């Protein structure tokens, strides 16, 4: 007899949990634990080391996507399948980004869950059949296209503040006066900003600030 697949259920609604459990039990699947919120799930999964975690998205204390991210980060071998009511692609993309292997909408027939569990156990990525074809491909294209993080995000809080002042037309001594820091510090920040944004003159910084809407034309 092949080894049973050990499954952990994360679902804050008891009624759903209780509906699911008998449907999964048997058929080579054993539900080894349940949790009602994200934090509890992360803790328990760390101890129980299940093969598959079936995770809702809307959870108290810690959302399902964030919980999945932590679980995968802590134990990359654990496969997480999202089972959720949300069917909008952003949820799917965010989940995939977090390291989730399967994504099912609760509308889907239950058999699909079994299919999904087996698929992820084989190392595949499984998405609900409700989704249009090509969703996964478009996600992969998006990832390939590159950075989801923009240059501006690399700026520290102070650097953002100083860029704003530069764009508003203040000189370094004026900014130093406004922010109660030395002119030298302002100059250092300015140099860092230019390096991070790969812009090398003040006019360029101002153009950039206008482009991203930091100041108005």
């Amino acid at each position: 007899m092949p080894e049973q697949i050990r499954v952990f259920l994360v679902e804050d609604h008891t009624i759903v949990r209780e509906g699911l459990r008998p449907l999964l039990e048997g058929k080579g699947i054993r539900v080894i634990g349940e949790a009602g919120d994200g934090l509890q799930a992360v803790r328990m999964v760390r101890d129980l080391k299940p093969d598959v975690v079936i995770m809702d998205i809307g959870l108290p204390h810690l959302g399902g996507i964030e919980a999945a991210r932590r679980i995968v980060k802590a134990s990359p071998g654990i496969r997480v399948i999202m089972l959720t009511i949300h069917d909008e692609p952003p949820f799917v993309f965010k989940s995939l980004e977090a390291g989730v292997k399967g994504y099912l909408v609760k509308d889907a027939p239950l058999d699909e869950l079994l299919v999904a569990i087996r698929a992820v156990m084989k190392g595949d990525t499984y998405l609900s059949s409700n989704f249009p074809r090509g969703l996964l491909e478009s996600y992969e294209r998006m990832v390939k296209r590159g950075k989801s993080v923009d240059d501006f995000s690399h700026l520290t809080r102070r650097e953002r503040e100083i860029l704003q002042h530069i764009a508003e037309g203040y000189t370094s001594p004026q900014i130093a006066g406004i922010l109660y820091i030395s002119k030298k510090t302002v100059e250092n920040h300015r140099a860092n900003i230019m390096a991070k944004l790969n812009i090398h003159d003040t006019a360029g910084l101002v153009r950039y600030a206008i482009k991203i809407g930091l100041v108005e034309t």
Partner: protein
Amino acid sequence: MDNNGNRLMPTVIKALDHTSEGILIITLEGKILYYNKAWLDIHAFGPEDDFRGMMLPDVERKELGPLINEAREAILTTGSFTTQFPTTRRDGKFHVVGVGCTLIREVDPPLVVIILKEVTELVQAQEKLERRNRELGVINEMHAAMTSSLSRNIVIRRMLKLLGDYIGATYYAVYRVDMRARRATLRASIGIPRKYLKRISSVSLDAPAMLHMFRSGNICVLEQDLPHHRGRLDEMRVVLNIKRTIISASSARGNYNYLTFFGVTRDEDIPADVRTFYQTAAHDFGIAVERVELLDELDRRQRELKRRNEELALIGEIYEIITTAPTRKALVRRMLETLSTFFGAEMAGLFEIDRSQDLVTVVDSLGVPPGVRRKLRRLPMSNRSFAWMVRQRGVVVPEEDIPDRIGDLPVIRKELRIKRTVACIFEAGTGRDYQLVLCFTKDEDVKPEVRLFLESAVKRFALGIERRELLDGLRKSQGELESLTMRLIDSGESEKRNLARILHDDVGQLITGLRYEIDGFEKMLVPASSCVRKSLEAMRSQLRLMSDSTRKLSRSLHPAMLGELGLVPTLTWYVDNFVRREALEVDLQAVGFDKRLPHAMEVTLYRVAQECLTNVVRHARASRVTIKLTKGYPCAIMSIEDNGRGISNKKRNTPAQGLGLVSMRERVQYVGGRFEIKSAPGKGTRIRVEIPIKGSHA
């Protein structure tokens, strides 16, 4: 003998006739036989005086003087020698004469020829020189006094003294004349006893003595020539034994007329040249006095100007306080500070009077020690000294004038060494009465103009308090309105969120649970008949529809995605769907969102963006919208710009457009942000939202 003498006489007379000397021929006994015109002139006798045949003693009576007698005696004692007396002497009015005497024995009886030679010119010239020198000295001193920087009164007194000394006066006075009122007011005096000063400080120009003085050619009035002594001046002249009054009027440039009086107690006439000089000097004196008066006037005007400037500055300061004081308390405090500094009061207080309760309560006070302040907190209105002060309305009250010195207030005032009190009552605000009290510990009166100005300052104080109270009221109701709106927005949003949660969590999950039940049920019926399976399938598809519409409803109420994924993905998703529905190009760019924003801010930005896009489709007829989201520091910024037809100011205030804008603005303000809209017909619309980020979210 007579014949002989008479025969010889024409010869003698003829011999002496060519001289300009005065010739007097007498007998040894002293009988006057002859004199010529020069002799009469020297003695200042007139042609009407006839001395011929008279004896010398008789002539003496006519003030011929002992001089001739002396000459005769000398002739007689020295026998027949001709003797000359080159002496000069002063003798009463007979100034100076040179006397030569000749005894003519050839005739019988012998004759004494006395030759009077006027040698007065030299002496007179000397005297004149002396006098001129003195006059010059007077002029010099007057000039020095005139241009000195001494005080005005001293200058006038010094000049008065110079002039009076010159003519040998005992009493000196200068009056300023008001021709219109026909009165003269004393400006300065010297030597006049104090008790008369008050009486003569103002005299009528129409007093008989005054009129007479004017008529007498303004120079020297003999006391006995004045009309009946009845007026105050007249009485004084008698008491002071004034014999002559030297009077001069001067009107330098028409503006002021001055009268100078010099009382002379010597009963002696004043020489003509002294009078002449006096007249010019008096004229100079008039000019000098006028100059001094003008300087005084200038000085007064300058002081007035300075005071006005200070007042103006104070008014400016008061205005500034009234417009900038953030609270009524701050307003009162700053007003008290400013007023007490300006008027030099050591203590100041503002009291509120409640007439219905017969109570006075202190609003604020300055410079009052805490112990005393406690006592002042509540006072009965019926306190008599207080009520009295209230009645005085803006008057400076010397401490000793305040009645009823029993009770708390007088004790307190004494304790604080208060010497003067200004109490101004004014009404301000909603019919409330206030009393401003300034207290001075210096025992000197406050100038009347300062009092006047205090009243006007207090009026502004009243306005300030009134304005402040109205503003406070307005602000309070505005605040109430705002918080009401906030609560409305907030409760709307949380209501929606609640509903969405119920729909999603409870209804949605129930549907899901039910579906799993159906699945389980189907598995129990093995093998299920096709008709049962068909029925179960129908149930499932209906549940799916139910679940779909529940989800849609939930999402429209409150997007769960916003909570789960944050602003940027949710807005991106919303925009994607939006452009699919509407013929609109939307460019959304977001930078800096390495961290999520607080939920309330995300909801606000999301709702504003939604509202904007809806507005664009509904009103703007735009083809393109650009949304820029920037998480800067210290603010998150969202700008939304369309290329539509813009909104006119008029339209912006119509209910349909206006309400949307107002609710957007209020949402933004609720999270502490700023909402700006720029639009003009044909120029598109640009909305800019800035929300400050706090703490860990930055």
